[in-house]
């Protein structure tokens, strides 16, 4: 009898064959303009997606059944695991997450093929070809190196249990969002390849690529921030971003997607940078793929990585082939892709500022790339492996951040094709004075400033810049809205992209304001007997008694600290805890967290008296402005969604008018 697992494996094999056929047939059909071959290839692509979809449903059903006859399920679940983490076990480890990646890419490919407008009819075969080629390789890997349906004999009675660090609500949502972002960035890549194969950026290309790039950007932004949130509440070191290799590898595609969006807006308005758009689309996907490789290869160690596996070199060699073939295709075909006006003068204008913004994003990506791969580079060159951790990145990030803010501020005030700032020098005067006042007020209210030295300077300059940039954005928005005509709802509805960009830029500023607060952090470690208390930042924290609590499958040892003192506003208690999971030996941190608007009180239970519960050792951090970082993700996502909803942006492009 054929079991569900066997059928799942069979479906994956079938999908691999279908994808391979689809990529070859669509390439052939596209070149020969053979409609029947192309539609056959498209159908094969949809069928392949359906096959992967059903196989994924099978794996999910088996997971929910806790069928330990599968190695993957044995390794990642156990009888005590709550339902939501059993579902999340699907993407908790190598094989399942590889399947999810493949499934999402397949779904996006089908969706892209189904929604491609008629104007892109000639590009569709190549889009199908590019994506199905990637899918063929992913499915081949799923069958050989990363089979989620591999059996487990003899069948155990209980599983090893899910990694306790992953048993956190953010882990249910964070990886799928990242994968959504990674795979959605495959669509702009496919369209870039298609434009090269076809020989030109046809009308309608921009609108479609922009929409998909935005979808990828939104998912990736949300995924990255939720990953930070997970690290913050789960890892217990009071930070959310460690410049960890895997974090970096999700940041790089985000940077390139951001650059791509800016490049596309130049293309829409001026008809230039068509080839740059193609390059950036490819880079965004390459780096998404690179991140997927980095997480699975064990080349660089990371908190987020899976155990090293032989799948790593396979990813890398495919990425290499992909890059070389895309590069060759670009060199061969791109000279035929020409800008709309040949005698363009850039000068001091909005489009120039957008180019500078892309350049700065690329430099940032270069820093992140160098730092992430330096352990490997240094080992190859000097023979000694040198690590690169936070200090390196932190010595560049402030300067790049400041430059980016300057470009956001002035770039938004500049006009397309013309020199001159909106608001003129009066506007600048107003913006700078507002910034200094607001920064002063912020410092006074928030109490977020460090004591001395470089940190204080960075905070002061940074805060002023944030408020100045925000003021520039407001001047631009007000001026722009004044220029539009008609009823307010029409003016807003017609310019959603403008509003979306405003909101998203504001989100970036709020995030930077949040990062700046991190230059100051207060922390203290205390050992307390029952009833003892200590003071930190005008809070008085009193330890009363240890208590034990069963929460789902975990037994928590909790050390409640009652919050009182001059600053307390009825926050109640800070509960730092350790959790014991039935399938794991060691104890895991459950961070105590009390958030106020200006800062978080963050408590970690370092140690406790296991015999009698008489004393505990706790570390308490005061983390300023962290809440702003979480707020910023809402602004980024909202801004992105507003931009997606704009049905007009891109249609008014010169590209369209010329066609």
């Amino acid at each position, binding site marked *: 009898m054929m079991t569900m697992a066997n059928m799942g494996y069979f479906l994956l094999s079938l999908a691999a064959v279908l994808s391979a056929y689809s990529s070859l047939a669509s390439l052939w059909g596209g070149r020969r303009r053979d409609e029947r071959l192309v539609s056959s290839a498209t159908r094969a692509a949809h069928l392949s997606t359906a096959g992967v979809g059903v196989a994924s449903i099978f794996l999910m059903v088996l997971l929910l059944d806790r069928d330990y006859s599968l190695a993957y399920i044995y390794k990642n679940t156990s009888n005590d695991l709550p339902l939501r983490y059993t579902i999340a076990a699907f993407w908790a480890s190598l094989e399942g997450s590889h399947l999810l990646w493949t499934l999402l890419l397949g779904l996006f490919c089908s969706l892209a093929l189904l929604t491609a407008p008629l104007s892109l009819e000639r590009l569709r075969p190549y889009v199908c070809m590019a994506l199905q080629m990637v899918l063929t390789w992913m499915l081949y890997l799923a069958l050989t190196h990363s089979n989620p349906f591999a059996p487990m004999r003899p069948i155990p009675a209980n599983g090893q249990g899910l990694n306790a660090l992953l048993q956190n609500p953010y882990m249910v949502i964070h990886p799928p969002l990242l994968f959504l972002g990674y795979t959605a960035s495959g669509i702009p890549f496919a369209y870039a390849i298609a434009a090269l194969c076809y020989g030109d950026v046809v009308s309608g290309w921009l609108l479609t690529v922009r929409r998909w790039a935005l979808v990828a950007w939104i998912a990736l932004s949300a995924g990255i921030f939720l990953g930070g949130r997970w690290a913050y509440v789960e890892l217990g070191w*009071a930070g959310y971003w460690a410049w960890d290799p895997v974090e970096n590898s999700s940041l790089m595609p985000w940077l390139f997607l951001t650059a791509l969006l800016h490049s596309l807006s130049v293309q829409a308005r001026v008809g230039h940078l068509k080839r740059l758009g193609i390059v950036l689309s490819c880079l965004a996907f390459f780096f998404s793929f690179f991140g997927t490789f980095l997480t699975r290869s064990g080349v660089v160690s990371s908190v987020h990585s899976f155990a090293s596996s032989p799948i790593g070199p396979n990813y890398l060699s495919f990425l290499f082939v992909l890059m070389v073939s895309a590069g060759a295709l670009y060199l061969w075909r791109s000279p035929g892709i020409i800008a709309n006006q040949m005698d363009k003068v*850039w*000068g001091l204008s909005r489009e120039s500022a957008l*180019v*500078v913004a892309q350049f700065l994003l690329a430099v940032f990506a270069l820093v992140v790339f160098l730092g992430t791969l330096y352990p490997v580079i240094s080992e190859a060159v000097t023979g000694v492996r*040198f690590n*690169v*951790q936070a200090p390196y990145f932190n010595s560049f990030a402030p300067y790049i951040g400041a430059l980016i803010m300057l470009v956001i501020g002035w770039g938004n005030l500049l006009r397309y094709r013309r020199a001159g700032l909106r608001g003129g020098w009066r506007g600048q005067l107003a913006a700078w004075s507002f910034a200094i006042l607001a920064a002063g007020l912020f410092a006074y209210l928030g109490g977020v400033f460090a004591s001395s030295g470089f940190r204080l300077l960075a905070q002061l300059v940074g805060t002023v810049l944030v408020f100045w940039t925000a003021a520039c954005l407001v001047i631009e928005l007000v001026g722009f809205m004044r220029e539009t005509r008609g009823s307010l709802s029409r003016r807003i509805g017609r310019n959603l992209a403008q509003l979306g960009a405003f909101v998203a830029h504001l989100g970036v500023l709020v995030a930077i304001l949040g990062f700046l607060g991190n230059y100051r952090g207060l922390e203290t470690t205390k*050992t307390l007997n029952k009833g003892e208390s200590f003071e930190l930042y005008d809070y008085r924290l009193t330890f009363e008694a240890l208590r034990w609590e069963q929460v789902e499958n975990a037994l928590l040892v909790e050390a409640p600290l009652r919050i009182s003192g001059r600053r307390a506003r009825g926050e109640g208690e800070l509960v730092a805890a350790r959790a014991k999971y039935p399938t794991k030996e060691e104890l895991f941190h459950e961070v105590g967290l009390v958030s106020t608007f200006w800062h978080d009180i963050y408590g970690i239970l370092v140690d406790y008296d296991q015999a009698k519960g008489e004393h505990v050792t706790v570390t308490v951090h005061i983390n300023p402005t962290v809440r702003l970082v979480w707020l910023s993700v809402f602004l980024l996502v909202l801004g992105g969604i507003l931009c997606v909803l704009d049905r007009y942006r891109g249609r008014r492009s010169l590209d369209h008018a010329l066609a």
Partner: protein
Amino acid sequence: MKPKLFVIYLLWLSGQLFGSLRPETLSRRLGELSLADKDRVLDIADELRCPTCQGLSVLESDVPFSLQIRNAVIQQVKEGRSKDEIMQFFSDRYGAWIRRQPPKAGFHWSIWLLPWLGLLLGGLVLLRFFRSGVTGSGESLARRSEDEILRELDERLAALRGVKNGGER
């Protein structure tokens, strides 16, 4: 188990035995130092890697081994040794992996200078790019006669046609 990892494990174990009995708070030890020394300790401790954690410095983590290293740093700062000397001391003792960033020396300059170089050279290239094509005064900003635009369009179409025909054969 790799020998290096094994050594780390032994060190960690000894740290567990001797260090965890009474975790010494950083703030109290720092209290004995002058303000300048305190900053130096924080600076150095932030550049030394916590051996048993992932991506953290000995400043950020509170595992016993980190506390040991932190105390050693405080001791050496008190003895008046310079930052370079202290970093070298730990490098010699534990190997290069204890550093959280490569030193500014030899080949390692590349990773420190490349971003700045990229920023500088890229900036110059961009400046040239923005200024290029300026013919005469700013008056020429995309002001052309209709005939000229039509002629350009024709050229463009011809160019495109050439590419497609060439591509299809």
